């Protein structure tokens, strides 16, 4: 898949933002007033900023409101609803916490649930796609949720929770790569099934339909060299998990905390780049490409 910056920014930032909102809704940290204000600004900045970024790849962003209509079948529509509900509920909760010094915990819990649901629905947009075997795995929502929680905990300063959550996310990430690398072969889809000609012999793509490129090739066919991908995986792993965990074990220090967050953010972004760039759409088969 083409690793479009808009979707990488979107999933990275909004995952972290909603992860943070999740913890804020549960009163972790238990803050009010200006401190709460800063936390909510960061959370909203990340989640709303991410959502805004996601509209950049739309052909007609002015019609985006229509996306609320199809919640019964569309994960993208559900994501929209969850995000709006989460942001609205958490907004009310934030007003209470920031301006009124009130902790409306029922609202907070509801907001937390919808924040996590937003991350889940986002992940399901990818998970549902049978056409992309690397995404079409139970580990995909696990990956998104574990990242959201780990990042949220980190941002929320929940050191004791952040370390185990980061370790869990790291484990899921490793499992996701391990299983993802085998997913295409395991899916059973190949040029033989794509053309129905597999029973006749070995099928090989010959002339493409057009000598130039097209939307499908631009959108779905992106080749990442194996060595390049391995390097990026190590970088991602180090930045997203190793560095933050090490820093969290050190005595608390605001600077270290900032480094941990930035490192985690960068690591997640690299992971997300790989999430898209390494995802192979079955349509590439028709073009003799993966």
């Amino acid at each position, binding site marked *: 898949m083409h690793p479009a910056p808009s979707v990488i920014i979107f999933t990275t930032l909004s995952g972290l933002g909603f992860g943070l909102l999740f913890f804020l809704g549960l009163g972790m940290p238990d803050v009010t007033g200006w401190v709460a204000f800063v936390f909510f600004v960061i959370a909203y900045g990340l989640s709303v900023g991410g959502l805004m970024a996601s509209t950049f790849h739309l052909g007609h962003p002015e019609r985006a409101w229509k996306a609320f209509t199809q919640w019964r079948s569309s994960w993208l529509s559900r994501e929209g609803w969850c995000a709006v509900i989460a942001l609205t509920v958490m907004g009310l909760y934030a007003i209470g916490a920031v301006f009124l010094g009130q902790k409306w915990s029922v609202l907070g819990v509801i907001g937390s649930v919808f924040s996590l649901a937003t991350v889940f629905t986002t992940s399901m947009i990818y998970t549902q796609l049978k056409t992309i075997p690397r995404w079409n795995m139970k580990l995909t929502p696990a990956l998104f949720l574990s990242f959201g929680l780990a990042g949220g905990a980190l941002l929320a300063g929940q050191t004791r929770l952040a370390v185990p959550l980061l370790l869990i996310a790291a484990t899921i990430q490793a499992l996701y790569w391990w299983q993802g690398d085998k997913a295409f072969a395991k899916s059973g889809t190949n040029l033989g099934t794509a053309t129905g000609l597999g029973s006749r012999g070995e099928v*090989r793509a010959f*002339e493409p339909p057009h*000598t*130039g490129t097209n939307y499908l090739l631009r959108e779905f066919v992106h080749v990442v060299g194996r060595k390049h991908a391995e390097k990026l995986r190590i970088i991602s792993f180090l930045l997203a998990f190793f560095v933050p965990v090490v820093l969290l074990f050190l005595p608390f220090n605001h600077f270290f905390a900032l480094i941990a967050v930035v490192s985690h953010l960068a690591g997640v972004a690299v992971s997300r780049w790989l999430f898209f760039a390494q995802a192979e759409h079955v349509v590439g088969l028709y073009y003799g490409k993966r």
Partner: protein
Amino acid sequence: MRKVGSQSLRGALLNQPVIDTSPKVSDEVRKTTCYMCACRCGINVHMKDGKVAYIEGNRDHPVNKGVLCAKGSAGIMQVNAPSRLRKPLRRVGPRGSGEFREIEWDEAISTAVGWLNELHETAPQKLAFFTGRDQSQSFTSFWAQHFGTPNYAAHGGFCSVNMAAGGIYTMGGAFWEFGQPDWEHTKLFLLFGVAEDHDSNPIKMGIGKIKVRGARVIGVNPIRSGYNAVADDWVGITPGTDGLFILSLIHVLMKAGKIDLDYLARYTNAPVLVNAAEGPEKGLFLRDADGKPLVVDRVTGEPTAFDKPGVRPDLSATYDKDGVTHRPVFHLMAEKYLSDDHAPENVAERCGIPAKRIRAIAAEIARVAFDEAIELDQEWTDFRGETHSKMTGRPVSFHAMRGISAHANGFQTCRALHVLQILLGTIEVPGGFRFKPPYPKPVEAHPTPHGDRRPGRPLEGPHLGFPRGPEDLLLDENGNAQRIDKAFTWENPMSAHGLMHMVISNAAAGDPYKIDTLFMYMANMSWNSSMNTKGVMEMLSAKTEDGKYVIPKIIYSDAYSSEMVAYADLILPDTTYLERHDCISLLDRPICEADAAADAIRWPVVAPDRDVRGFQSVLIELANRMSLPGFTNEDGTPKWKDYADYIVTHQRKPGIGPLAGFRGENGDKEGRGAVNPDQLNRYIENGGFYVAHIPEGADYYKPWNTAYQDWAVGMGLYDSPQPYLFQLYSEPMRKFQLAAEGHGDKQPPDHLRQRLKDTMDPLPIWYETDQQGNEGFTVNALTQRPMAMYHSWGTQNAWLRQLHGRNPLYVPTKLMREHGLQDGDWAKVSSPHGEITVPVMEMAALNENTVWTWNAIGKRKGAWALQQDAPEATKGFLLNHLIHELLPPKGDGMRWANSDPVTGQAAWFDLKVKIEKAAPPEDAESQPEFSPIKSPVGTGPKDLAWKVGK
């Protein structure tokens, strides 16, 4: 379920969007003839707001019956192409630069007249007028004939003259679009070589039709693409060995007696008696006082004229007269083809086909021809007066085109294929191959060539024709060629279509003489339509010591900014095909079907939005300004004001004009009839074409069928019935051979004697075409045209160029491995003549010693209104750079033409190359590169979102 419009109630309940499923399609449909290739399909041009909105096939049209190919549907992008020339141009920069100034038509016409008129009056041969993809050859040749130059031809010489001449000399008609398999009845269809470019939609339709019936297709082609991809069996033959394979099939079939003796006896010259005595008559037919070939009558045992009523020709009996034995042609064939040289085991390796496979194919042919023969309950009467109660069909059909003809042995190979058809009795029978009017037409009904030089006066007959013997060659008293292309000389005696590919090199060399003006139409000679492209560019811009161009003046007409435009001094911009009048005439290459005569027109369905004029109308204006004979009434006034006027009022013979339909004052005559001033309107009302059906019972056995012959006379195809025998044995060829043996007063130069003896064999032979100087060059290299493109025309088309914007060299798996190549790598491809460096791509379904590419995708920078970094100009390439119009020197002091020695057909499929892996060129562009041409029309727009209607 109740419907709301086309929406069902349920759909409405489900809140489905309401869409208009019955939108207006167009304001008006204008029916004309396509010109995106040589197929001439009928098209419906849908108009909206006076503009072309959509093009589809015309269901009523005899050629395409509603279907349309990719090119045809893309016509809208051609008619609006940014590459269209806009105004007459006069060159201001050096030739090849593309620097022009726009001029008015007045200046353009006066300039041309200024150059041409003097030549017409003093030395007409100094004008060489050659046309390329011209569909008005009966008119352009008429113009050239009345100008008086011997130097006219169209592009058949490098296209497929072998196929045309081989067919006409053998069976009085050819494949091309001049005949077709009997798609309704055939059960086995054999296709030789690349054939996707003529009659393309009819062949696709035919293949589709026979597959529905479960009939089988065998493809014989080194490349398994296109039609060969759908063939049930593919024979990946070594290029240039088709003749050997065919003769082996003949060997096997004759040996097994699987030949149609009755057919051979009745309709062919197999029983004709041939003089067997050494001397000047050897190999000539025994004829009676009327010149009619004689056969032995099985009833009387006496030699009898072949066409005498009641005669039953004997295939076996010999006849002695005055001590000279006369043997039937069939004896000579038995001797020749039963020889073990032709046994499958002895040709298998050379052809690259296992002997078992050759036998299997021969057996399958025999099985279908004889065990699955069909009979139509249709009575008919033959030319000897015998009435037959049935029509016997041998449902094996064949087709071939340039794949077999563009070799130096192509003429003989084409003849071999026709001989195979004839032996099987599959021509003009149900299930076999059928001619389309005006064919069948024996050689005798065709003109001989004319090329005398008579200042101020027309030639005495048409330029191109079919020589019957040495007496018809166009040589002057010193034995020098009369034509600039040396057609109809000892070098290529039967060059029935001329040799357009030799015109520029001969003119540049002043051999056989210098010319003054080169006048060309729709021929991209400085690019894909020439062998040795770089050399041709140099010849076109070569200068003499005094700084003048060697070819002093070049006039060129084209509708588009092709590579050739840059090399002309004066450009006469033509219209596109939807802006012009044309006729697709029975005098020329009509659109007939096997059971109907048909012709068609083009008419301006849109008006040009540029200052351009139809080329044929410009020719008429030039003729009028020069008062050319033939174009001028006795009182000195012009006969025609433009081409439309000519189409309607010209009469080749009384009552016979360019169009056969709606003749007579009331438009109720067909074939023959007075001029009808309303004829074009009647054609337009009728969908742009006219069909005259052949009566039932006249539609098979046409060369011998009295009913057909009478109908053809009525239609004006012949002046009298012309029944004839198929010429298994070609007496005209034997006459050239006799001359080479030293007989007769017309004698070839000594250096050509042996070649004439070897190649002018009156019975089909095969000979090796591997050329002198090919040592080390062992890989065959071919080109073919993609079905969605036609020569260079497709490139300027925004839709078609996306299909084929660049061309790799397709390399067979074995050679890929041998050279360590992978898709996208580059290879240096060299021939004795040149080298190119190009990207490669693997192809498994390919003869293991053959490489190939798509023809004419590569473009020169600056041409066709493309941007200079267009893939056509950076990655695309021409194989032409590797092919020379002359063969490498072989030490006899002469450069022999790279042509078939019989017809002069350019032998561009004889190319042999060597491939080596190469580093990608520094700029990652195919090599060689040429300097950009300055585009006289700029470049096209960036983006398109084409919608005419609102």
